[in-house]
């Protein structure tokens, strides 16, 4: 491994990317447009019914519980549910044994439910308030869209480019020099990796400017997740592009891996409602782990320890893709 040759390819690839203004602009603009579009589309009124979490269900019946317009959800963990009240994901949390209820003091739904509770057998319940910003759909969506953007940039930016290089003979010319496959591939990976990190940061700032979304965790942790995720997906792109010569086939294969990930990795909607088999299947997608880990950081403020299983899976997948990709790589 010669650092000199690695750096030469890295610099040339960076120049090519940064000078291709149209592609660069699209790489930055596309995710911003998606998020802004969705923020606009989902900014209308909420049609959901009221949601109340119940801990410590008691035997004594409460007339309130028969209200057909309220969804009652038994919950185990009072602390986690309290966080949901803070974020407006639950409108109220009731501890029936201790006869306490919690509402968010900024939530109109909480205020309404308090009136209903007092008027239908809950006079004895004591009121506790929490405060916190509402978690909107768009706040939930942002981590997924960041991950999806990383995915497209990684798969197409590396996979497609390598196939194009192979098809038009750039790779054959490089093969005739002392440059090794490892040096070449490492330069492609790192060139794309830092570009993805920079562009994702710009997309993050740009989107935040427009819609001011929530971030409860550490920026450094989010960087770790997205950078590792990008590395994993770039390696996947290398594997797809390791041998083929046709850009059409490459496009087809890359779409074949990216589209299921886009829909089944929980970018747009939670996987909880899906068939258990689909949920299991989603675990083989790197994007599922990226989305869940960054969502845990951004919405729940979880640290790296809390998402370690996702990080380990991403690391193992990266090594596997990278090894198989480098092993099966050919220049022409």
């Amino acid at each position, binding site marked *: 491994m010669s650092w000199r040759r690695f750096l030469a390819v890295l610099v040339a690839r960076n*120049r090519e990317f940064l*000078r291709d203004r149209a592609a660069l602009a699209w790489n930055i603009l596309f995710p911003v447009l998606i998020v802004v579009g969705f923020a606009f589309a989902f900014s209308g009124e909420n049609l959901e019914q009221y949601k109340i979490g119940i801990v410590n269900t008691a035997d004594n019946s409460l007339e309130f519980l028969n209200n057909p317009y309220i969804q009652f959800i038994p919950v185990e963990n009072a602390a986690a549910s309290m966080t949901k009240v803070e974020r407006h994901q639950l409108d109220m949390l009731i501890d029936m044994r201790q006869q306490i209820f919690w509402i968010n003091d900024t939530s109109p739904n909480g205020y309404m439910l308090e009136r209903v509770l007092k008027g239908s057998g809950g006079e004895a319940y004591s009121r506790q308030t929490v405060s916190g910003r509402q978690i909107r759909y768009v706040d939930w969506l942002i981590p997924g869209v960041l991950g999806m953007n990383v995915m497209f940039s990684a798969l197409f930016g590396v996979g497609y480019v390598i196939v194009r290089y192979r098809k038009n003979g750039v790779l054959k*010319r490089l093969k005739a020099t*002392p440059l090794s496959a490892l040096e070449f591939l490492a330069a492609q990976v790192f060139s794309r990796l830092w570009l993805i990190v920079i562009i994702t940061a710009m997309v993050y700032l740009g989107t935040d400017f427009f819609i001011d979304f929530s971030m409860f965790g550490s920026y450094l942790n989010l960087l770790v997740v997205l950078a590792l995720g990008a590395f994993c997906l770039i390696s996947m792109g290398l594997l797809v592009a390791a041998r083929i010569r046709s850009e059409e086939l490459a496009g087809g294969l890359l779409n074949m891996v990216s589209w299921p990930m886009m829909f089944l990795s929980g970018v747009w909607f939670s996987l909880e409602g899906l068939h258990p088999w689909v949920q299991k299947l989603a675990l083989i997608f790197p994007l599922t782990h990226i989305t869940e880990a960054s969502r845990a950081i951004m919405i729940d403020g979880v640290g790296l320890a809390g998402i370690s299983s996702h990080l380990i899976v991403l690391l193992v997948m990266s090594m596997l893709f990278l090894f198989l990709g480098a092993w099966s790589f050919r220049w*022409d």
Partner: protein
Amino acid sequence: MDKYCHNNAVYTEGHFEIKFMESILQVNNLHKHFQQVQAVDGISFSITAGKCLGLLGPNGAGKTTTVEMLEGISQPDQGEILYKGEALGKGFRDRAGIMFQSTALQDFITVRETLTLFGQFYPRTLAIADLVEMCALAEFLDRDARKLSGGQRQRLLLAIALINDPEILFLDEPTTGLDPQARHNFWNLVQHIKQQGKTIVLTTHYMEEAYVLCDDIAIMDHGRIIAMGTPRELLAKHFDDVVLSLPSGADVSRLKQMDDVDIIQRDSTIELTTGDVNLTVKNLLQLDFDLTGMQIRQRTLEDLFLELTGKELRQ
């Protein structure tokens, strides 16, 4: 032919000399096939250090397949290639300069940046200023490589091939698709490079290019070498006649009355081959042919190719 394959006989300055010169590249019984096609079918030859060998043949003759095996880019199915007596190893990349028949360069980087990129790959390189002079790149050094003309592009690819100051240079159809002026410019560059003592292997289907640049020529067809030697030797060995050409209006049936000539009808001329020009001209005058517009030319490699294979070189 065998003599030239194995003894490196050279023909210099009008007289035969059998010299035992250093053979830099030795090729023995090379075979290569792709699916059902036998692209190279048992060829052997050697290349003398400092000389230019031309592989001449029509499209599909196996020239590129052969040269890519010599470059170490593809592996032969059978046979061996020895560079200075040893199999092509990893170090060969540092000593060889390669210009492929078609190469794309990375987009959005300039000629200067392209040279810098390739320069970083080798332990020892020529200065960029030298390459710019050798290959006449000065006027477009800061242009995006996508925006070069055909001739400029080939000069850049030649510069890349020379960047590691190679001992042996492979040029695969370097002037195909260039206009005549660009082609002549390119030949001048190659002749300067030859003067520096580099060994050159050139493939071409232009007979004139082979004649101008090559010391030795191997004529290929159907994956085999069908003749090899210096251009003059080859012509002297196969031909002892010249070509008389008449405008196409001449009456062919009357020409056929003459003995000792072969008649070839071409698009715009009728060609007669003869070993005795004086006799043929006398016969033509006796038959009352108008000799206005008649031309006499020597046999060319094009004729040789037609003679050996029964088909024209540029088919």
